[in-house]
């Protein structure tokens, strides 16, 4: 049923299904965990399991979860349940996957009951990250549904005594040419879907699509605009208690004392949990928990030892830190001699995810079984981390994804689940709801790393780029739950867990080097990644990872090169691009924007252009903007934005538009305003006043997104296509408007500086 999300607190644990999964598919655990099965994870950001050795190559994540009934089950009443290991983070994939399944199964969307990310019920698809959801899970469902439909028809054919190709399936009913009917419940009787998928599927002809490619309204929106229970924050379980953690004021601080006894006497307080420097309080009522937290915080004394960066020397320090050298890629070819060489350095600060709703989780310890309701991006990796943390078997822990606020990468969702588990152990038998405070989410979550990029390129006499040298300095962009030590609360226990050492994500996905290989047809290039393993400030995946900074660098530098070549920025890019899909989005954006190479400069007004293909593998996007700058205030008014996007076969056009518009505004905020504040000892970002993000006053006046649909082509994902290009297009428009090229993010504060220097 396509209702607004039901909070599954009354869902019984399906023991039969769990046994199926244990037998029939791979279970995720971690190489560093004692006694766990060693398993292979894809070396991609989503770390989904890889196919078993020797397995047939199956589409999407069918490769690692080949059983059809891991994805689709139909009971004899005709109820259809579809399973995905991915989670609805607010991007709309719930609706998109319902569309995909309904299209291939030929039923109405309302007939699909979609279950998402649950270690007790769904396939393990790693993390919902890196724009892999529609590409890998959507593809699996697409193919599984088509194959299930064919099996249903086959089963019906046998029952009805006609050839399968004379049958028609529509709306859950299979009909013969002479009008006899069987519904899916009847057709599935005797049909065992517990079988591996085939490598190819009888996918419907895209020309016949009646759901894929349609802007089906999102199934979760009506509930969200009327107070429906939609988030983990909305769950109310019988006997539930409320908890708050007391966080250290800086990394690794040691708790010297706190008034545990006094706070335990406060009204409603059930318990104060103290384990080494880990401190939390549980109360019957949420406000009681907050008052107790305040009292406990007020009484707590800490010994602080953290050494962070000096804010004025951040980038210099990064560039001097010990590095693991990663040669990202190179190309060597014949070219005319370079006659003009340009070079520049760019910097990016630490960026916060800035989730509007601070992270929340509920954990319930019943006997030796732990259930955790969480909005973490990866329920299977989380379960593995919690198993190590709690000294439990993974099979005794169930992690169920329930949506939270948008996370935009690795925020505190996993950490709060660890809090909930630790506290639930101290209050067994009662569900424990832990809500992080705003200041903790801002102050303690892992940030997108600060980065430095250096680029140097040469033009030949005809204005063509003949050589390109690129270097990146960055910490890891991926400190996800490889072990319990990656769960921050575990670092404060009396017997602390230590985070596993950082591992770079290899190309073609990349981490800090994501999108660092130029897509352009430069005859020669060399890209080097100085991977910095020391992390004085806590970092991890932030939407797009290195792509945001690398595209900002590449696309603003391309404009500088175009100017040096006396070429129009759009023509310059087209000259260096062969991929027809790349050219298509550039030409479409330029046309819809009315890009005029002969445009006359108007003081304080500017236009800009930028392009990227996410990871050089996924969606293509070109974007143009027109801005006005107010030099006296440094204010930047974004007047109009035109974007052209190719995400492969589009499932839900409005859904893609929503993601692209959203990414444009989010990236504008990152690029113009955002930076985490800190000094040598502490992070000083703790709220929106110390980490301002774009408000309505700075929202563009107009955004138009033009979509190029590629029916039948692979799904490419839309969630991270716009962040890189948007940062660059703003940099380019500002340079165009003011004649000043700013290479340090965020851009807006520096714009003001350039007028009064």
């Amino acid at each position: 049923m396509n209702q607004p999300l039901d909070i599954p607190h009354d869902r019984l644990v399906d023991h039969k299904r769990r046994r199926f999964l244990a037998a029939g598919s791979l279970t995720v655990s971690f190489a560093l965990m004692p006694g766990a099965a060693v398993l292979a994870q894809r070396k991609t950001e989503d770390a989904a399991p890889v196919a078993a050795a020797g397995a047939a190559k199956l589409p999407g994540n069918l490769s690692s979860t080949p059983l059809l009934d891991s994805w689709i089950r139909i009971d004899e009443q005709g109820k259809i349940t579809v399973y995905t290991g991915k989670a609805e983070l607010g991007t709309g994939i719930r609706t998109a996957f319902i569309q995909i399944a309904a299209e291939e199964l030929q039923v109405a969307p309302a007939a699909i009951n979609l279950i998402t990310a649950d270690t007790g019920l769904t396939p393990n698809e790693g993390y919902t990250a890196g724009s892999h959801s529609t590409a890998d899970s959507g593809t699996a469902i697409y193919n599984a549904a088509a194959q299930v439909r064919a099996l249903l028809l086959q089963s019906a054919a046998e029952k009805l005594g006609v050839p399968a190709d004379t049958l028609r399936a529509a709306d859950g009913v299979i009909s013969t040419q002479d009008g006899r009917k069987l519904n899916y419940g009847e057709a599935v009787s005797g049909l065992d879907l517990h079988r591996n998928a085939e490598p190819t599927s009888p996918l419907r002809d895209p020309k016949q699509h009646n759901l894929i490619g349609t802007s089906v309204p999102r199934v979760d929106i009506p509930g969200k605009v009327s107070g429906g229970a939609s988030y983990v924050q909305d769950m109310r379980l019988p006997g539930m208690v409320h908890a708050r953690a007391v966080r250290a004021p800086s990394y690794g601080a040691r708790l010297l004392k706190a008034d545990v006894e006094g706070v335990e006497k406060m009204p409603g307080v059930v318990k104060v949990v103290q384990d080494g420097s880990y401190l939390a309080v549980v109360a019957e009522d949420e406000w009681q928990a907050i008052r107790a937290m305040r009292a406990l915080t007020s009484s707590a004394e800490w010994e602080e030892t953290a050494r962070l960066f000096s804010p004025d020397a951040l980038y210099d320090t990064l560039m001097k830190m010990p590095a693991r050298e990663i040669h990202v890629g190179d190309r060597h070819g014949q070219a005319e001699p370079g006659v003009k060489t340009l070079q520049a350095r760019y910097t990016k600060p630490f960026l916060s995810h800035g989730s509007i709703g601070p992270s929340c989780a509920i954990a319930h310890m019943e006997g030796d079984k732990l259930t955790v309701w969480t909005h973490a991006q990866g329920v299977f990796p989380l379960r593995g981390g919690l198993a190590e943390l709690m000294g439990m078997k993974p099979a005794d822990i169930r992690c169920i994804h329930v949506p939270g606020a948008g996370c935009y990468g690795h925020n505190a969702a996993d950490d709060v689940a660890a809090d909930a588990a630790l506290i639930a152990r101290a209050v067994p038998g009662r569900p424990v709801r832990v809500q992080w405070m705003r200041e903790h989410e801002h102050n303690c979550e892992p940030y997108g790393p600060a980065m430095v990029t250096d680029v140097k390129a040469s033009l030949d006499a005809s204005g063509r780029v003949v050589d390109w040298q690129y270097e990146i300095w960055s910490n890891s962009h991926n400190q996800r739950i490889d072990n319990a030590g990656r769960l921050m609360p575990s670092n404060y226990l009396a017997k602390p867990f230590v985070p596993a050492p950082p591992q770079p994500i290899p190309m073609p996905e990349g981490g800090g080097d994501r999108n660092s290989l130029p897509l352009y047809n430069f005859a020669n290039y060399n890209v080097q990644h100085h991977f910095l393993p020391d992390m004085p400030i806590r970092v991890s995946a932030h939407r797009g990872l290195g792509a945001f900074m690398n595209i900002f660098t590449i696309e603003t530098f391309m404009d500088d090169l175009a100017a040096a070549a006396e070429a129009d920025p759009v023509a310059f890019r087209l000259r260096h691009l062969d991929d027809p899909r790349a050219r298509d989005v550039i030409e479409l954006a330029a046309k819809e924007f009315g890009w005029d190479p002969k445009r006359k400069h108007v003081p304080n007004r500017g236009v800009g252009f930028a392009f990227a293909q996410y990871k050089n593998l996924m969606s293509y996007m070109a974007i143009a903007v027109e801005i006005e700058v107010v030099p006296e205030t440094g204010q930047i008014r974004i007047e109009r934005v035109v974007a052209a996007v190719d995400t492969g076969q589009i499932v839900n056009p409005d859904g893609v538009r929503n993601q692209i518009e959203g990414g444009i505004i989010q990236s504008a905020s990152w690029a113009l305003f955002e930076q985490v504040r800190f000094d040598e000892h502490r992070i000083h970002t703790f709220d929106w006043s110390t980490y301002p993000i774009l408000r309505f006053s700075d929202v563009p006046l107009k955004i138009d997104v033009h979509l190029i649909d590629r029916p039948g082509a692979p799904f490419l994902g839309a969630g991270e296509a716009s962040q890189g290009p948007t940062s660059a297009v703003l940099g380019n428009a500002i340079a165009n408007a003011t004649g000043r090229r700013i290479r340090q993010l965020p851009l807006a504060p520096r714009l003001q500086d350039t007028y009064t220097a």
Partner: protein
Amino acid sequence: MSSKKKAAWTVGAVIVIGVAAALAYARQPAIPPLAQAPAASANQSLLAQGARLAELGDCMQCHTAKDGKPYAGGEPLATPFGTIYTTNITPDVETGIGGWTQEAFARALRKGVSRDGHLLYPAFPYPHFTRMSDEDIAALYAYMMARTPVHAPAKANALSFPLNFRPLVAGWNLLFLDEGPLPQPARTQSAEWLRGRYLVEGAGHCASCHTPMNALGAEKSSQPYAGGLIDGWNVPPLNALTLARKPWTVDQITAYLRTGIASEHSAAAGPMLPVAHHLANAPESDVRAIATYLMSLQPPVPAQPAAPAPAAAAESQPLSPGAALFNASCAGCHSAAAPMRSLGDRPALELGSTLNADSPRNAIQMVLNGNPWTGSSAAHYMPPFANVLTDQQIADVLAYARSTYAQRPAWNDLPAAVAAIRKENSK
């Protein structure tokens, strides 16, 4: 002579002198207009100097209407004599100062005379700008002429008779305008002090708000920097900074003016907030000079016992009404262990002048209005409570904060004061 009689004599004298002056001086000669605005200067360092002066002088603050284009005027200034609308000082020829020569510009700043010879109201603080050097006026002129011209005709002032009769200003000028640069100081002073005095008494025109006004709208020369009342806010005196709960210092003043917050005091709010925004763009050395000069105006730091620490937040007892309100509405930011204090290094509530002042006016304004966002920038933000708390509740929570944090004698008639200020604000 009673002060009422004195005032009456003063007014009488002004009217007599004014009429005489009106006849003699009221109409100054017009300086012929330029046919078009001068080309914007290419001298980047001159423009940068002009930009800095504009920030130090806070010109944009008055000469820009809410949601208006910079320097295009139209901002209403509430004076005791009615409303004056600021003028368009963009280089638009028809409605701005695009037709003004540098000579005309300098005359306006030094004498309060417009290009066409009419007298400007001293709401434009030319008695301060008259202190500016030729060089600085030239830089400011270059900067203003490089602004984007905006076509925005002046709005008619709403002044009550007889003050809408401009020639009376001539008399006012005779009494209150001391033209030209500042005299040499009595004693030798450091370069920093001299620079500070030049800025404070000149372009900075601090006394326009920080000195009380007499009945004729001029600064009371007998009470320099003794404070004032602007836009419903008490303007603190600048001659008693060492008498604050923690005595101000040069460092604290410099930080306050440049960043909008002082760690031993509080955040800039109300009409002072935009001043801090603009001084953030001025060179640190200039702001430090301002602070140095201001500190020289102070009485010596008194020997006083350290103020007692506020009573610990009473979390476990049943709370009084004021305490309950504080707990829900204020404690999340303002209690001693709040993240704003521990992670944000923001000053304690009891240190600011607001909660310690004899008058509750500023405290009431803070609670009613909060401290706003400015676009999407960082801010020392506080939410407004006008729609959340009633007058009585604001009175209760302020009484609680005053007694528990500032530990000063209670303010009188708080509910009535809140109601009165709320009514003022709604006009």
